């Protein structure tokens, strides 16, 4: 199940040579075409010819989301608008949207990356794929769309919303592959249970879930409910959308499309490049982008990269599932807390549902964390002591993982908000 054998199983030394050639190209391209980069490189006293090896990338200053915002909308584009054939904008999870533009070559390359990651988990021309990502400015839906068409899959572009209709198509078209966020896949299952059709009238076998984090525990939960094979893929709109990396069937890390991206792991505080195998912030330099090239883009996502060959036969580097976005990281009473850590704990506990909400408040100078979960197991209701022990169990496990006391609140099933796009599970009320 390797779509592009040449690129995905290339000898590492050949791959590095290709990356170096492309890195030199992109640095030069930015310097020549984008005044913003020229200034930045001049200030840092880096001329493009300073790049002689891959590790020389460390001399280049980082690019951040703020740089994109400051140059809103097209300030960092490297080609005139007549060469731009598509524009997307970030979903704006954190603030004002950032705009990206694609040339024809960019779109072709994008489809190629997505084709690889979809093919790697078993999607092919027999797949009937329902894309339940919102179509529009968001890169997710159209990104997956063209990549899946490229491998010959039948694409059903349902977009988000209208879950009943979504499920009708799923039954009638015998949809076997779902593209959505993990939380929407869970929500659809709740709706399906109530829609009155037996669950075997659905034919889902594969889920390409993305656009928000998904812990292995949550993945297991989705697999158990739908009975499908769930896979993770990664990308962010600034680097071109989904397709930067994706799991193969081994699900032992996400293979990076390294002929298109040079990835580094840095210390988010010092900016220093870390040793291979270390956990830190992912920094991405797209190697072929013409519309809006980027140099050392700081993703704010925390992960680890391994260069060991994978059992699947690919030689490309693999990154771990995203541990958290450094923007998502909460600092509560001085303790770093990733929502994904909490999710892992909650998914391992029976008697509660998979949905949750985190509420952070400040009382005086004290931060408090409240974790709301839905009680779904009626058998505990007979005795308070059983609810109490569930309650204490959740509290203790959270304490063990986070090192701080959280208030645990049990709420009724379906009372927490469900999300069709990216789930917003954290409610931080401290600055209000």
């Amino acid at each position: 199940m390797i779509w592009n054998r040449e690129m995905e199983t290339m000898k590492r030394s050949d791959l590095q040579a290709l990356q170096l050639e492309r890195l030199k190209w992109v640095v030069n391209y930015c310097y020549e075409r984008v005044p913003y980069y020229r200034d930045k490189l001049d200030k840092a006293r880096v001329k493009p010819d300073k790049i002689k090896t891959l590790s020389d990338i460390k001399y280049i200053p980082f690019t951040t989301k703020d740089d994109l915002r400051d140059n809103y909308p097209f300030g960092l584009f490297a080609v005139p608008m007549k060469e731009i054939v598509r524009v997307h904008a970030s979903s704006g999870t954190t603030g004002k949207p950032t705009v990206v533009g694609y040339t024809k070559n960019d779109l072709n390359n994008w489809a190629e990356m997505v084709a690889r990651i979809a093919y790697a988990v078993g999607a092919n021309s027999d797949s009937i794929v329902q894309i339940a990502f919102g179509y529009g400015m968001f890169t997710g839906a159209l990104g997956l769309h063209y990549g899946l068409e490229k491998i010959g899959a039948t694409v059903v572009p349902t977009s988000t919303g209208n879950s009943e209709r979504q499920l009708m198509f799923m039954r009638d078209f015998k949809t076997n592959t779902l593209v959505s966020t993990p939380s929407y896949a869970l929500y659809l299952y709740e709706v399906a249970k109530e829609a009155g059709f037996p669950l075997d009238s659905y034919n889902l076998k594969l889920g390409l879930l993305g656009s928000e984090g998904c812990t292995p525990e949550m993945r297991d939960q989705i697999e158990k409910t739908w009975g499908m094979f769930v896979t993770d893929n990664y990308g962010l709109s600034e680097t071109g959308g989904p397709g930067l990396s994706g799991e193969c069937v081994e699900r032992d890390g996400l293979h990076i499309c390294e002929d298109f991206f040079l990835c580094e792991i840095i210390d988010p505080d010092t900016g220093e490049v870390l040793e291979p195998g270390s956990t830190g912030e992912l920094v991405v330099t797209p190697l072929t982008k013409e519309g809006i090239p980027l140099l050392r883009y700081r993703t704010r996502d925390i992960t680890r990269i391994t260069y060991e060959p994978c059992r699947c036969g690919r030689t490309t580097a693999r990154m771990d599932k995203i541990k958290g976005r450094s923007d998502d990281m909460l600092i509560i009473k001085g303790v770093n807390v990733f929502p994904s850590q909490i999710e892992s704990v909650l998914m391992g506990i029976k008697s509660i549902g998979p949905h949750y909400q985190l509420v952070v408040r400040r009382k005086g100078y004290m931060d408090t964390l409240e974790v709301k979960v839905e009680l779904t197991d009626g058998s505990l209701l007979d005795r308070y002591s059983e609810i109490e022990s569930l309650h204490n169990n959740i509290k203790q496990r959270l304490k063990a993982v986070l090192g701080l006391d959280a208030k645990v609140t049990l709420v009724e099933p379906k009372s927490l908000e469900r999300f069709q796009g990216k789930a917003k599970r954290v409610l931080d009320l401290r600055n209000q």
Partner: protein
Amino acid sequence: MLIEQLSIFVENKKGRLAEVTGILAKHNVDIRALCIADTTDYGILRLIVDKPGVAVECLKEEGLTVSLTKVIAIAIPDTPGSLYKAVDLLAKHDIAVEYMYAFLNPKKDTAFVILRVEDNEKAIKVLTDGGVALMKSEEMYTL
């Protein structure tokens, strides 16, 4: 001799009780007895109704967390000392009461007490042997 009791998980939110009882009303379920125990965040509503099966079904359909438990109902004279006699019997036989609630039947000078104990069979025997009248489920549902 055992009676089906519903336990419903209810968040402490305005209007929640109205919603739950509204669902029961819509399905024509008649409530015979009820009690609520609450904590800061949630409460457990316990109900004896005329159609426990229907009640569980319709509440679950609305997404509520519900369970059915078998409890005992005794009928005792509405006079001082009657409850003491019954509860004392249980205590002497080492039967712990998890929770209980009571209501009056003014027509008959009788009080009914719903009891949740650890060992139903043993409690029934002790109470019957001690001369305490137990209610049958049909009696309870059609009260």
